[in-house]
């Protein structure tokens, strides 16, 4: 199944996998992701949401639409099947209006995960060292302060621990102002699994798990993006 996803993307001359494809690949490798499934109709969307659990999130799926929220392609916090159905219609109408030329495959349905400490796990390919793993705190801390740690893939347990501990924002993961500490064991495990995943899939040029929600117990990747080598 995973091989089929990459082969299909290659056959379609795509290097960017859809979020659904990326999450299937990641889940196959035991990486905790919030599963997303494709709904082509209003009824499918409602049924998938009921199965995955409420509240639900809907996102438009189209190879031509990179910035989903710009075309009204994202709906959050949907608490019932009726809500989901209505949101499906709004997304389809809005996407067609804002991107009339785009081929729209449907809508990705996923559960809206409870918020945790946002972290980012990424992979990029360095021309000299090959695949490189990145870890950092999510949101503004990664964008403005570039507070991230790198390691060359593959990493060992010790590297995973050092990556987490060497970012400046580490105290935020240790718990602050009554916030429970983040599950560092789960984050280490996530880093090791992503390292093994990329090592096992040399076709992958870039990967972003952003954000990952870190909880007192466990961690889950809410969004995922995978780019293949040309």
């Amino acid at each position, binding site marked *: 199944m995973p091989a089929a996803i990459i082969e299909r993307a290659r056959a379609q001359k795509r290097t960017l996998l859809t979020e659904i494809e990326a999450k299937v690949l990641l889940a196959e490798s035991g990486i905790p992701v919030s599963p997303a499934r494709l709904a082509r109709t209003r009824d499918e969307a409602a049924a998938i949401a009921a199965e995955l659990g409420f509240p639900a999130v809907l996102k438009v799926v189209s190879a031509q639409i990179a910035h989903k929220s710009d075309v009204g392609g994202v709906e959050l916090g949907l608490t019932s099947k009726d809500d989901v159905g209505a949101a499906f219609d709004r997304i389809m109408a809005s996407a067609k209006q804002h991107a009339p030329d785009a081929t729209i495959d449907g809508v990705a349905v996923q559960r809206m995960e409870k918020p945790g400490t946002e972290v980012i796990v990424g992979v990029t390919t*360095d*021309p*000299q*060292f*090959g695949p*490189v793993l990145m870890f950092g705190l999510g949101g503004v801390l990664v964008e403005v302060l570039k507070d*991230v*740690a*790198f*390691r*060359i893939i593959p*990493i060992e347990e*010790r*590297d995973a621990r*050092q990556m987490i501990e060497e970012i400046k924002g580490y105290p935020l993961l240790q718990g602050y102002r009554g916030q429970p500490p983040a599950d560092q064991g789960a984050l280490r495990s996530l880093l090791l699994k992503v390292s093994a995943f990329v090592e096992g899939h040399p076709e992958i040029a870039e990967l972003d798990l952003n954000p990952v929600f870190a909880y007192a117990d466990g961690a889950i990747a809410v969004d995922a993006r995978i780019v293949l080598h040309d």
Partner: protein
Amino acid sequence: MSHGLPEELFSPKSVAIAGASSNVDSPGHDYVRSLVDAGYGGPIFPINPRASEIAGLPAYASLSDVPGDVDLVISCIPADGVLELIEQGARKRVKVLHLFTGRFSETGDERAAELERRVRERAMAADMRILGPNCMGVFDSMSGLSFRPDLPMARGNVAFISQSGNNSVELMLHGAARGLRFSKVVSYGNALDINEADLLWYLAGDPATEVVGAYIEGTQSGRRLLEALRACAGAKPVVVLKGGRTGAGSRTAASHTAALAGQRQVWSAALRQAGAHEVQTFDELLDLLVMFSFTRPASGVRVGVVGGGGGRAVQSADVCEEAGLEVPRLPERVRLFLREKAPQLAEWVDNPVDQSILAGSGVSGARVLELMMESGAYDMFIANVGEDWVLGRPDAGERLAHLVDRFAEMGRRATAPMAFVLGPADSPDERKWRAVEGARQRLIDARLAVFPSVDRAASALSRAAHRATR
């Protein structure tokens, strides 16, 4: 290419210098002179079609005219003669061709890069390894190989590899002034064949080398470098200065050695992952080589500091803590001694020990340091022996020498790492200058780690101690 380097790189049975010159102000002369002065034991063959004798040795018109086989050829001829040199070398069973010759791919010129590719091809076909092009070559204190007549030949435990030629010379000269003695130094230039990974692999297993320094601007294979670094750092301390970390630095690096410099963060990650010490400046590189060369690893980060007056003591405490060290108070055992010998000071003196408080008390800073060393309350020590009040005395030279000898004796006996601080005299007074330089030399001759400032001593102690955290 395999990382198995031929033994002839470091211990050739014979050496020929193509482009040897009788002009004493040229590299072609320097190479011949260097081998003679360094005491190289095998035959040296200067090659020059227009000279009969160079540096007292008979010269040969071409490599083909040299009697018998030649292990190592040093090329100082222009780039366009190198292919012919390889053809002649193949018949002489040359194992290693060192190309001091430059103007290859580092110029960015496509024809020069093409010539470089052909040189590589022909050398490979002749089973000849290439060092360079565009590099100073090999220094080996055991076999008497040297690339400049003024390099310190004392046999030692420090190896240094450098993509840059002048960095290799500077490190040796500045390092020797700090007491470093070298086993092997290799300036490898464009790394057309023999590269930094090959050399690190070799040094990992080199029994003469206990400490490794490297100046690297770029690499053709990050993966192999990472593995070689891991192997080397697993066996001995490895200190790496990565050149071309910034945008401006990278531009210089590209035109300098035709190597692509990688991103700063990725290099830092790789070095850390391999267990190597990354330094940002040449001074830090020297300081860590000094630290690893003269001291044993620390078992912790608690530092005891002696020397300097009140303000200096406060600043010493600041820089130590900022460098990641702990500055614990004097233990009870030391206070007991002070209560007995100098009761009025007993509760006043603390770590760092303010030398000015002790003045006239009959208790010397050296004695307090001794007690601190015996107490077991510290993992490492800084002895600041640059004493301004001593320098003000008419007999400054003798006094300082006496003080330094006392500290040096303690340093020799110390099992914990000990850093000595003696800054430059910073004085136009020649008498003071001599006193300070003389004292420094006494410490260095005693094989001790000497630093120009408390800041640099603290930083080196901290970095060396944190190796254990890997």
